[in-house]
C-alpha cells in the first residue's frame, strides 16, 4: 500500500512533467511549420512560342496560335488564387532573317505575380505569330522572371518547333538551371506531336528537370493539361522544398544532418558522405532516390550504406534496375546498438553510366531523407508472445498431460 500511495502521488507528477516537456515542443514545431508553408506562394511561368510557324492551321481546324490563346484564356480564368502566374513569349517581336537578332527575341509579357485576369487575357490577345524559336534563351529569361523567390518554380513551355537557334542547347540549359538550386521544373507541351525532333528535344528538357512532356492532340487536351499542371503546383505547395546540401568525399568532414529531406547532386562514379548523430534507443532511417535526368545506359543501381566511425558497415540498402525510369531508390534502417550517442556515416553511390556524348556535370539529382524514430522492440521469440499454434503443439500438450496423469496415478499406487 505504501508503494501504491507513492505511485498515486508520483503518477500525476510524471504526467505533468511529460506534458510540460512535450507541449512547448509541439507549439514551437507547429508555429514553425505553418510559418514555413504559408510564406512562399508557388510560381508558374507560362512560356509561349509565338514563332512564325504558329500560323499553321492544324489543331482542330484553327491555327496553333488560336488554340494556345484559347487555352491560355481558360487557364487564366481558372488559376487558383494562391498561384503566382507569369507569361513570357519567344519569337514574338523580330520578324526578320538575322539569326543574331532572332535568337535573342524573348520578352516578358506578364510579370510573375498575383493574376489580374482581364489584364493577362488582353496581353495574350495581342500576340501574333512572328519570329524565331530561341527556346534556350527563353528558358533563361523565364528563370530570371521569378526573381529571388524561394518557393516552388514551374515553367510551362508551349511550342510547336525545336529550337531554331542551336546554341545554347535548350536541354543543357534546362539541366543547368535545375541544378542551380532553384527547385525548378519545366513541363513541356508540344503542338506538333508527329515531329520526332521536337518530341526528342521537349522530352529531354522535361526529363532534365523532373517535369513532364505532353504531345498535344487538340485544344481541349491542351487546356486540361495546362490547368492540371497549374492545379498540381497549387496542391504541392504544402510540400517543403528539400534543403540543398553538398556531401563530402569522405566521412570525417561530411555535413552533419538532422531529420529531414535533403537534395544533392552526384556525378557518375562519385561517392557522397553525410553524417547523422544517433542517440541510444533510437533508430536511424534513411532513404535515397537518385533521379535519371539524362540519357543514361539502360542498367543502373544505387547503394546506400551506413558506416560507423571506423568505416565498419552497419547497414545497407541497394537496388538495381533496367529500362525507363525516373528515379531509383533504396533505404535502410539501423537501430542504435551502443549505449552512448554515436555518429553514423551515410554513403551514397550509384552505378549509373552514360554514353560519352552525355553531359557529366552537374551530377544526377539525389534526394536523401533522414529520419530518427524510436528503436524497435525486438522479440524474444519468433511467434507472437511465444505462443503455440497448430495441431502438433496441441497433440504434444495432450500427450504430455496424459503421461503426467499416468505417472501421478502410478506414483499414488506405489506410495
Amino acid at each position: 500500500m505504501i508503494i501504491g500511495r507513492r505511485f498515486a502521488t508520483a503518477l500525476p507528477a510524471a504526467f505533468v512533467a511529460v506534458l510540460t516537456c512535450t507541449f512547448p515542443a509541439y507549439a514551437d514545431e507547429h508555429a514553425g511549420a505553418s510559418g514555413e508553408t504559408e510564406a512562399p506562394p508557388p510560381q508558374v511561368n507560362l512560356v509561349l512560342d509565338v514563332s512564325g510557324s504558329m500560323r499553321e492551321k492544324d489543331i482542330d481546324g484553327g491555327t496553333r496560335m488560336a488554340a494556345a490563346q484559347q487555352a491560355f484564356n481558360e487557364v487564366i480564368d481558372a488559376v487558383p488564387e494562391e498561384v503566382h502566374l507569369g507569361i513570357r513569349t519567344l519569337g514574338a517581336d523580330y520578324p526578320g532573317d538575322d539569326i543574331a537578332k532572332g535568337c535573342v527575341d524573348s520578352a516578358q509579357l506578364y510579370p510573375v505575380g498575383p493574376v489580374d485576369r482581364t489584364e493577362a487575357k488582353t496581353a495574350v490577345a495581342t500576340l501574333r505569330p512572328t519570329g524565331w524559336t530561341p527556346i534556350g534563351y527563353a528558358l533563361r529569361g523565364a528563370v530570371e522572371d521569378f526573381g529571388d523567390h524561394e518557393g516552388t518554380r514551374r515553367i510551362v513551355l508551349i511550342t510547336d518547333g525545336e529550337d531554331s537557334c542551336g546554341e545554347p542547347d535548350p536541354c543543357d540549359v534546362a539541366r543547368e538551371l535545375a541544378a542551380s538550386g532553384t527547385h525548378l521544373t519545366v513541363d513541356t507541351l508540344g503542338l506538333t506531336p508527329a515531329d520526332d525532333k521536337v518530341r526528342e528535344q521537349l522530352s529531354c528538357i522535361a526529363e532534365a528537370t523532373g517535369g513532364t512532356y505532353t504531345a498535344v492532340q487538340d485544344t481541349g487536351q491542351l487546356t486540361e493539361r495546362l490547368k492540371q499542371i497549374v492545379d498540381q503546383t497549387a496542391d504541392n505547395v504544402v510540400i517543403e522544398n528539400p534543403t540543398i546540401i553538398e556531401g563530402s568525399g569522405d566521412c570525417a568532414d561530411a555535413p552533419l544532418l538532422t531529420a529531414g529531406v535533403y537534395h544533392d547532386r552526384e556525378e557518375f562514379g562519385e561517392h557522397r558522405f553525410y553524417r547523422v548523430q544517433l542517440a541510444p534507443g533510437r533508430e536511424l532511417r534513411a532513404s535515397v532516390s537518385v533521379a535519371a535526368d539524362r540519357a543514361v545506359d539502360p542498367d543502373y543501381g544505387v547503394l546506400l550504406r551506413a558506416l560507423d566511425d571506423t568505416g565498419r558497415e552497419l547497414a545497407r540498402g541497394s537496388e538495381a534496375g533496367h529500362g525507363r525510369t525516373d528515379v531509383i531508390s533504396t533505404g535502410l534502417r539501423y537501430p542504435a546498438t551502443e549505449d552512448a550517442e554515436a555518429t553514423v556515416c551515410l554513403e551514397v553511390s550509384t552505378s549509373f553510366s552514360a554514353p560519352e556524348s552525355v553531359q557529366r556535370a552537374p551530377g544526377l539529382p539525389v534526394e536523401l531523407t533522414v529520419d530518427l524514430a524510436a528503436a524497435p522492440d525486438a522479440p524474444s521469440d519468433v511467434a507472437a508472445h511465444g505462443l503455440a499454434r497448430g495441431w502438433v503443439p496441441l497433440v504434444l500438450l495432450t500427450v504430455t498431460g496424459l503421461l503426467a496423469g499416468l505417472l501421478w496415478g502410478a506414483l499414488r499406487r506405489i506410495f
Partner: protein
Amino acid sequence: MPTPLPLLPFPAPGPATTTTARRHRRRRPALLALLTAALLLPGAAPALADSHEEDSGSATDTTDTTPAAAGTDFRSAGVIGEDRTGSAVAVSGDYLYWTFPAGAGRQITAEVSVTLPDPALRGGAATWQVDLYDGLRRRQPCVGGEPAATADPSAATLELSCTLPVIRPWADSWENDPLPGAYYLRLTATELPEEELGLPFEAEAAVSSRAAGGSADIGGRLGAPLVLTSRAGSLDTGSTDESSGSEENNGAEDEQGEEAVPATVPEPEDGWFAGWWTDRWAWTAAGGLLAAAAAIAGFRLVRRRS
C-alpha cells in the same frame, strides 16, 4: 482495448472533491489498480494515440471519397487507401505515384487499370508496370498478381496488380520484409516506343487487403511505422547537447512532424499494429485444457486399476 484508462488521472479529482474523505479513501485502491493496469498493459498508451489519430483520420476520410489524383514523385504521391481509390489523367511517359498506409498482419493487393492511349496514335507494343515501395522507398516483391504486362498495339485497356507478402510488425534491420507504414505505388511504362511519348491515357488505382490470420502473428514491434518525415532538413550546427538530452521530446517532435505535414498517410483503420489478441492464445489455451483433461483421465485410469 482499455482506451479510456490512461485518461483516469484527469477526471478522478473532479468527483473526488464532491465526496467525503472516507469515500475518497475507499475508492483509491480501485483507482490505483486501474492505474497500474493502465501502466502495465503495453498497448494502453499507444491506444490513446491511436484513437485520437483515428478520429482525425476518419473525419477527413468521410468528407473526401473522390479519387485521389496521382503525384509525379514519391513526395507528391496522392494519398489513397482501402476506402479511397486513385485516378489519373496523364500522358504516357509520366511516372504516377500514389501512397497508402498498411498495418501489420495484412496482405495488401494493389490493382491498377490503365486505359491506354488511342490505338490510332500508338506505334507498337508498350510494357507497363506497377512497382510497390515501402516507407523507406525500398522496392517490394510481388508474391501474386501481374505487376507487368505488355500491351499489344490494338489493346484498349490493361489490368495490372501486385500482391505483397504479409506485413510483419517487426523485422531485423538487415531484412527487406514489408513493415507497417506508408507504401508507394508507382505506375510506369517501362518500355515505350519513342513516338508514344506524351499521349494521353487514364489510370485508376485501388488497394485492398485481407487479414493474414494467426499464422502470421509474429513477435516484436517497430518503434514507429515506416513513415518518413517530409520536412525540409536542417544541418546540425554543432551543439548536439540539447537534442540528445530528452527522449520524450525527440519522440514528440517526430509524431508532431508527421501530423503537421499533410502529404504523409493517415493511420489505417485497424491501426499500424495488431493488438495483443491473436488466435495463438486460443490454440495454446486449448492445448492446456486438453493436457489437463488428459492428465485427469490418465490419473483416474491408473488409480481405478489399483
